[in-house]
């Protein structure tokens, strides 16, 4: 990796250089009742739109690579025949400016299942391949538990990663494009002093991470605790609303619907992101539901993220961004659920 | 000359709600002329009792599917008047803009879908899609514009979502507002084409002396829609809070709707009443079109209400352009002011497409509704419709009209009022 440094005020120039492309970044969306700022990712129209000191956005940047609704194909029908048309929905390169490590790690995890597996998903792949990612260091919030999920730092999946030092940016340069870009602004190769400052910044950041999840032997513990009563307790609270999956940067499951236009000559196959917490997630024709109770669905979500994915890819599908816990109206958070499932090992101590 | 005739129309079509027309002529004399309102009452005034004030606009909007925006705004104004809240200038302008688009939407619906088929000799707008496709397209374009703007400003074309006590939950997008400005400009061509079409219609030359009641524009060039003094063409003037003196509701056995009267045995509200009472306040271009179509104040031909609606369409489009210009010339301010409930009574008068509408709400000190009263334009028109029918029947006898002609004229007369019957029996 090549490390460079540039003065903080050069960031605007970097943005401007990239601004011939659409730039998506964190923006202030509004304020809650207690006047706390609320952020989300959106298309920006100027450097001033960027709110790079955001703690966490409400939603992940998912809609730019896994839209909630998307046409898998369209059909034109004639009396006896039809044609199928497929459009992956990517037409240009997009810059994602200001992603935190957790969100870049989320993309890396999605890459594994959506791009590097059998049947790679071209709808995701087309967008993902056309992304220029400028990561930005974060200031952890009380609900961030990225460190437990080994997502607090990121080593690939971006072009440029910026860490804010006092009055400059420490840049991890990870692509030729990014390297050339930095040559166009005032920047220099990082010195020992910069390395030191960087390490200091990282350790300061780590001190702010308070929430945590004990992941040791978690896959086994989840199997042992499959019938634990705590699932029922969390299930009683769950609203089966799908909010957690919607805000999650790595939830990717979906449903498909086919619709015919009013002219009966055009039709669409639409994909809509789903959530395993929704009541009919595992329901089949005729009405049989493999997970009729809300606790079985909630449990499944944890099994998929913290057990099944680990089994398949040796890492969890959760990046510890804390969004699902923040958004859940029933206050169901990953650290608490996992701690309660592990409950037994505390008793043992 | 035709001496006997018996007309009995159950559930008149192409009007909102359920009403019957009965005309019996015996030996050249009108033996019976009746406008029966048989709509089922829904008891909105009772429904509201015990509800928190924030429910009022949301529930009252459901009085009527056509003028839900008007009802919503009337309820909001009643609450705000009750709690002594004055809307900001920005809120007032946005509300008026929204109101204008409802007026446009509702008038176009009436003119084209409900009234025009009579003048073009068909039973509904459906055959016109084949015989007069350009007319239908005009209507659809205008209605679409109005509805799209209602979505943008009010959140929803029907039963708006963004309109709340204290202001708006959300403000329109400035960029789109500017685009609407352009669509409004472009829509004038369709309105002028409509005026041309109208000039070819053969409006019956029937008229009857009528007392017209409406709001009075507050100042020169202000054609009234939200709040202000109440006036009648017979010279009555009352303040908004004194609405009961204007409405004088009573019941009659042929109607589940209440009825109203003022200086005479009946009165009329609506586009024609507004225009008769505020003719000089119309936008100059609208006024010109009105004159071209032979509509000058004070006009007593009820069929002219169709023309008055068209003139108002032109007015609201032109005025909306002005409103958008004003809104876009300054930055958005805070969209919602704090609401502090207080005990008391709030009264609002708002001009909805079919005429003047009153909402009156009484609150306890927590803002819970204790009593409610809504006086609907169509209920104020019912008695006038009935006396018009009676006079029309006589006129038809005198003109030697046959049964079919009389029947059609009577139907067209009721339709001309654009009655909203379910609304009147709310």
């Amino acid at each position, binding site marked *: 990796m090549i490390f460079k440094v540039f003065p903080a005020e050069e960031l605007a120039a970097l943005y401007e250089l990239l601004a*011939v492309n659409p730039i998506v970044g964190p923006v202030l969306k509004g304020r809650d009742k207690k006047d706390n700022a609320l952020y989300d990712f959106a298309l920006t129209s100027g450097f001033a739109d960027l709110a790079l000191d955001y703690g966490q956005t409400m939603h992940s940047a998912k809609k730019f690579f896994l839209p909630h609704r998307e046409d898998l194909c369209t059909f034109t029908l004639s009396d006896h025949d039809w044609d199928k048309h497929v459009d992956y929905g990517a037409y240009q*390169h997009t810059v994602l400016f200001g992603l935190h490590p957790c969100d870049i790690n989320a993309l890396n995890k999605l890459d594994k299942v959506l791009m590097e597996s059998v049947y790679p998903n071209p709808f995701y*792949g087309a967008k993902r391949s056309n992304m220029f990612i400028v990561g930005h260091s974060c200031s952890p919030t009380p609900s961030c538990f990225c460190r437990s999920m080994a997502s607090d730092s990121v080593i690939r999946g971006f072009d440029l990663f910026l860490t804010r030092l006092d009055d400059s940016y420490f840049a991890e340069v990870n692509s030729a494009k990014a390297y050339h870009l930095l040559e166009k602004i005032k920047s220099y190769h990082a010195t020992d002093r910069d390395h030191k400052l960087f390490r200091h910044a990282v350790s300061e950041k780590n001190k702010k991470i308070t929430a945590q999840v004990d992941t040791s032997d978690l896959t086994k513990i989840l199997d042992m605790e*499959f019938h634990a009563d705590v699932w029922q307790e969390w299930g009683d609270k769950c609203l089966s609303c799908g909010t957690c999956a919607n805000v999650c940067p790595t939830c990717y499951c979906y449903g498909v619907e086919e619709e015919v236009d009013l002219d009966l000559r055009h039709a669409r196959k639409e994909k809509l992101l789903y959530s395993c917490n929704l009541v009919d997630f595992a329901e089949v024709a005729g009405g049989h539901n493999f997970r009729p109770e809300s606790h079985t669905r909630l449990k499944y979500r944890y099994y998929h993220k913290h057990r*099944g994915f680990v089994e398949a890819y040796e890492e969890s599908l959760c990046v510890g961004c804390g969004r699902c816990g923040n958004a859940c109206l029933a206050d169901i958070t990953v650290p608490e659920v996992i701690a309660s499932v592990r409950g037994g090992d505390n008793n043992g101590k | 000359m035709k001496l006997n005739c018996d007309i009995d129309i159950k559930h008149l079509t192409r009007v909102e709600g359920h009403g019957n027309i009965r005309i019996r002529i015996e030996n050249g004399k009108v033996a019976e002329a009746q406008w029966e309102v048989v709509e089922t009452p829904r008891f909105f005034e009772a429904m509201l009792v015990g509800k928190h004030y924030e429910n009022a606009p949301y529930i009252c909007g459901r009085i009527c599917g056509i003028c839900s925006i008007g009802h919503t705004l009337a309820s909001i104004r009643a609450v705000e008047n009750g709690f002594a809240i004055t809307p900001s200038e920005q809120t007032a302008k946005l509300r008026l803009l929204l109101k204008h688009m409802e007026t446009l939407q509702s008038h176009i619906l009436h003119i084209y879908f409900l009234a025009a088929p009579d003048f073009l000799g068909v039973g509904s707008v459906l055959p016109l899609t084949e015989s007069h496709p350009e007319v239908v397209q005009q209507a659809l374009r205008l209605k679409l514009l109005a509805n799209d703007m209602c979505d943008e400003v009010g959140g929803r074309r029907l039963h708006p979502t963004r309109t709340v006590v204290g202001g708006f939950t959300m403000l329109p997008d400035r960029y789109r507002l500017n685009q609407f400005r352009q669509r409004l400009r472009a829509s004038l061509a369709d309105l002028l084409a409509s005026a041309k079409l109208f000039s070819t219609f053969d409006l019956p030359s029937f008229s009857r002396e009528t007392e017209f009641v409406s709001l009075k524009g507050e100042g020169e060039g202000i054609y009234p829609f939200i709040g202000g003094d109440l006036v009648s063409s017979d010279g009555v003037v009352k303040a908004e809070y004194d609405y009961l003196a204007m409405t004088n509701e009573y019941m009659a056995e042929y109607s589940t709707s209440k009825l109203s009267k003022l200086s005479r045995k009946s009165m009329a509200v609506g586009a024609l009443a507004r225009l008769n009472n505020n003719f000089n306040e119309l936008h100059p271009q609208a006024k010109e079109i009105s004159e071209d179509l032979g509509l000058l104040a004070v006009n007593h031909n009820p069929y002219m209400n169709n023309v008055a609606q068209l003139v108002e369409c032109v007015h609201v489009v032109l005025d909306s352009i002005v409103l958008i210009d004003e809104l876009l010339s300054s930055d958005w301010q805070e969209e919602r002011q704090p609401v502090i409930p207080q005990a008391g009574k709030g009264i609002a008068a708002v001009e909805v497409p079919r005429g003047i509408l009153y909402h009156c709400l009484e609150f306890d000190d927590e803002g819970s509704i204790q009593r409610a009263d809504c006086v609907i334009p169509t209920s104020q028109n019912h008695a006038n419709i009935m006396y018009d029918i009676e006079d029309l029947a006589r006129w038809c006898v005198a003109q030697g009209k046959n049964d079919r002609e009389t029947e059609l004229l009577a139907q067209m007369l009721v339709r001309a009022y654009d009655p909203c019957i379910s609304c009147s029996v709310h």
Partner: protein
Amino acid sequence: MENKLEFIDLGATDQPEQARQSVHDFEYSHKAEITNVYPLTATEKLYQIQICDPDERHNFTFHPGQFVMLELPGIGEGPFSISSSPIRHGDLELCIRGVGNMTNFLNRVERGTKVGISGPFGTHFPVENMIGEDILLIAGGLGIVPLRSPILSVLENRSRYGQVDIIYGARKPSELLFGYQYEMWKQFDINLEIIVDEAEQGWQGPVGLITEILKKRIDQGRDADFRHKTSAIVCGPPIMFKFVCDQLTHANLPMEKMFVSLERRMHCGRGKCCRCNIGSTYTCLKGPVFDYWSVLNLKEAI
């Protein structure tokens, strides 16, 4: 414009062949024509579906037990087991029960209609590994549909297998599928035993549970090498295969020699929609055919 990032077209010709191919696979379906429709019972029909393009048809190969995604444009898409023999390539037979949106629409469709076929997907019954062995094929209800492909496959290579038993149970005689083929199966030296829950007029066969027939078969086969020379393929409702597999386990048949096919909701067949996951295993990739050992290790499989 020099900083305009260049658009990368995944499907473009300058991409490596393999990447391009796999990208196009995802939403690709073969256009196929329904060439014949045979009503089998009140609710099931057999559809003969031929992939239109001769090359695509020839290149379409599958193994018994795999499934395809069948698409009716604008109506719906769903997974269906291939019920025909693998040697017929893209000349497929699907047996489909009308239960929901798409399957009921399919009921109204006549020959000549064009549909979309993608696949084949999933794991299969490893009949190639059973050569030289006795085979027990046990089906309950609609479970005979995925079993028909291994049956046909075994028939075509009849001499390479030992004793072949088909035990088939249905609720009523009128619900039995593929009746017209039983004689043919028997001619190939197959022991076919059929049992129903409930007799109807004209029924002369046994009435009762499938496990009773299985018991007889096990008892007669209770020789030392039953466990060494038998494989079982079991297909039917979960409750049925659980009983059957338990019974076989008691008879000392190793779990890894029993194969079942599981059914789950599916929207893609490609390991992407997650709807078919059991615990956290994709039924469409790791299944639908599992050996019984794997099934027992899947949380919430039965």
